[in-house]
């Protein structure tokens, strides 16, 4: 303890039980662990020293950004060292001409775009938590957001990173210049959920703001018509910047927060098309026609920036608004092929009925990333368990439809049990090789992603029972 205090200062070390509580979970509060201590370094050098000391002391390290993750990725393992990076929030430099920017990991996502806006630039990935989530966390989770259909995910916008390895060595992955020789380790890092090392600096690609953006809100009699509209728009060759769908329960939740500005219907599509003025005039008009063709009841186009922002605020507040409808809910993040949206939504409704719970759907329709919210009341007997089961069936439905268990929230602790539904043992073993190449002793974020503890055997490529397994201390499979 004293030695960690000596590195970062006593004020940046937390070990009193009542203060540690705040760090027991991320945005999935039912997954909790009690860290041994929390350390909040302010610089790369401090991170290096902390990591070295933790390594020498045999302490596992769990990194944490703003704690907004939805998969328990920042959930501490009991007794671990929780490394909070929120005090490393310098913007190091901005190179507008080359569309590059270097930041520390604690910089908040939205602050980047705010800083760039006066120059006519922005940072594209926009997770719904952009106002508080950190770039370091975005790198860990390969965060998406509503606008990644057209502009890509964090992995498309992170060009380089400085990484502190388990032994304290600092390495550069990628960089401001494209295609650095060697394996694309930056590609491996993004989305690795804090299991490879501690990111102390990130080089981002920044984008010029589009000439214009048009927002369109279309209402539909049901999600089937809304799903058909999405298919028609995509088939027409339009690539909307974002295209979001909400069903009746989700709309009702948003209405309870936003009031009458939101319509009282069974399905809504909220869409942005952006680009040059010439392009957007065409795509906005065409998208409107296609919505009507698919059976839209009403089309709303915001007449002011404020109105547009209100529409998007409604969408982005959907999760929080759900609290008005139900005391508890489970957020799922499964992905399905876009063409199967209508069918899968019907299946989800059937599952909800089967398990006797309500499921709200608010999701990124353009890329088939569903966010079913399974509502339940923990105070009622067995309801939590039924919700849990329903939620598991939804994940399996996504996988059997050719999709994924998670589109942007990450696996973390929450979905580790489902990894085996999507990947074979060989697949998981191969992934583990990647991890072991960076962190052979699995010091960073242990217990995440993989369904069972995986160790870095001394004979790569062949399964070797670990001594602890032989002695019965751990199990597999």
């Amino acid at each position, binding site marked *: 303890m004293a030695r960690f205090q000596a590195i970062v200062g006593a004020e940046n070390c937390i070990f009193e039980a009542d203060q540690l509580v705040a760090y027991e979970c991320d945005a999935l509060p039912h997954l909790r662990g009690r860290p041994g201590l929390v350390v909040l370094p302010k610089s790369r050098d401090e991170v290096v020293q902390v990591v070295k000391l933790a390594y020498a002391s045999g302490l596992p390290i769990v990194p944490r950004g703003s704690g907004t993750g939805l998969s328990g990725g920042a959930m501490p393992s009991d007794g671990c060292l929780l490394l909070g990076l929120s005090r490393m929030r310098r913007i190091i430099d901005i190179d507008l*001409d*080359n*569309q*590059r920017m270097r930041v520390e990991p604690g910089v908040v996502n939205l602050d980047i775009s705010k800083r760039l806006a006066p120059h*006519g630039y922005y940072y594209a990935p926009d997770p719904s938590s952009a106002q508080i989530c950190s770039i370091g966390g975005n790198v860990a989770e*390969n965060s*998406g957001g509503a606008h990644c*259909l057209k502009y890509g995910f964090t992995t*498309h916008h992170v060009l380089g990173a400085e990484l502190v390895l388990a032994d304290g*060595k600092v*390495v*550069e*992955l990628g*960089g401001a*210049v*494209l*295609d*650095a*020789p*060697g*394996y*694309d*380790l930056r*590609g491996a890092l993004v989305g*690795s959920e804090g299991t490879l090392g501690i990111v102390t600096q990130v080089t981002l690609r920044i984008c*010029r703001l*589009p000439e214009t953006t048009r927002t369109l809100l279309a209402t539909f009699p049901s999600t089937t018509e809304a799903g058909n509209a999405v298919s028609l728009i*995509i*088939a*027409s*060759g*339009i*690539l909307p910047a974002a295209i979001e769908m909400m069903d009746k329960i989700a709309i009702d939740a948003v209405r309870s927060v936003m009031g009458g500005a939101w319509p009282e219907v069974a399905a809504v599509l909220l869409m942005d098309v952006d680009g*040059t003025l*010439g*392009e957007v*005039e*065409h795509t906005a008009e065409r998208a409107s026609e296609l919505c009507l063709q698919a059976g839209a009841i009403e089309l709303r186009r915001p007449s002011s920036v404020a109105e547009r922002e209100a529409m998007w605020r409604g969408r982005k507040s959907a999760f929080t608004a759900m609290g008005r409808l139900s005391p508890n809910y489970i957020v799922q993040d499964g*992905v399905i*092929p*876009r*063409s199967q949206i209508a069918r899968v939504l019907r299946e989800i409704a059937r599952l909800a009925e089967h398990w006797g719970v309500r499921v709200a759907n608010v999701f990124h329709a353009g*890329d*088939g990333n569903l966010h079913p919210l399974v509502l339940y009341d923990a105070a009622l007997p067995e309801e939590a368990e039924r919700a849990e089961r329903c939620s598991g069936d939804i994940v399996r439905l996504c996988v059997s439809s050719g*999709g*994924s268990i998670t*589109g*942007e*929230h990450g696996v973390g602790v929450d979905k580790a049990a489902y990894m085996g539904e999507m*990947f074979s043992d*060989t697949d*998981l073993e*191969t992934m583990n090789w990647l*991890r*072991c*190449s*960076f962190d052979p002793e699995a010091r960073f974020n242990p217990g995440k992603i993989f369904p069972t503890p995986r160790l870095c055997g001394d*004979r*790569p*490529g062949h399964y070797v029972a670990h001594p602890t397994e032989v002695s019965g201390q751990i199990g597999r499979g």
Partner: protein
Amino acid sequence: MPALEAYEPESVAACAELFTRAAERKLRLGVIGGGTALGVGNAPSALDAVVFTRRLERVVEYAPEDQVIVVEAGITLARLQALARQNGQWLGVDAPQASTATLGGLVAVGGFGPRRARYGAIRDLLLGVTLVRADGAVAHGGGKVVKNVAGFDLPKVVAGSLGTLGLIAEVTLRLHPLPELAATFRCVGLDASGVVQAMLALRRAQLEPSSLVALLDSHGRFELGVRLEGFQKGVERDAARLLELPELTGKSPPERLSEALAASYWQRAETPRTACSLRIRINALPTQLPDVQKWLEPLLARLEGGRLVWYATLGIAFVAGDPGDPRPVAAALASARGAAMWAGGSLVVDAAPGAVRAEIDAWGPLPSAFSVMSELKQRFDPERRLNPGRFVGGL
């Protein structure tokens, strides 16, 4: 030396079988797709067998509504594009030699063409990969949907790994809708800083070209090609704005090319990536073209038929030419590499005659994270049997 064995497996299962046997016999293996990029990297230190992927040519799955296609690795880029085109789609990768280059090969080299400016390189469109490992096991990474963060991003690591981690047997790719109209504009007589200014002016104007390349002419000036693509109405309107940008006027105002002239321009822009016996690339920042040109002057002066193309929004230069005397050419390469690295970039060799190779490593000094790369290779291929010595640092 015993003759090199050659194999042409017809399925992923046959590849797995072959790799399992090869593991038992400890054969060192090279994998060949279309053979368009065999010069990339160093020559393998030794091979016992080569595996041709050309019979891996099945389309595994294509759901046009989802704009996703799964193909075996031996399919050529041209065939994939023809197939996608029937559904009004394409893969946003316009790498050279499409009729020969295979998808597996393009993934192995991290391929791209001028449209990378809009669509990214193949790494950015690669959703999933099936890898036959050195031990013969078949591993899948990624998925079949555009958005997926389940587990580590194996496809990213496989992209650009030059067959040193396993045989790329199947790939899943994101497709895009074909644009309704393409229009190419040419600006001649720009100097290097003029090219940078033109790039910045297009961006200031919020025009979004899908390609922006500059081809060096014989007078040390550049011929800039700008391609706008999208819906007809949008392209026409953007075209009018583009033609008014003063920064695009070099010796004369920019001109819109006919379809035939445009095709010929883009073909010429490809030759620095396909012609001659020596080919290299320099990666730098987009604003560094004036420096890049300076670094390359001594090299270009020593090459027969030397040529250069610059991908202006990406900061990538491709240079080709035929070296006469290998020594001074290697020296010019080394000094250009030194300058590029000093400025934060890199120079890699895509093809070279043996006499030049003997003087210079294809990749240059070890990257900062080489220890991790080396560990990675060790875990995927502990006996170093896959393309040994071809990759960075002899991996």
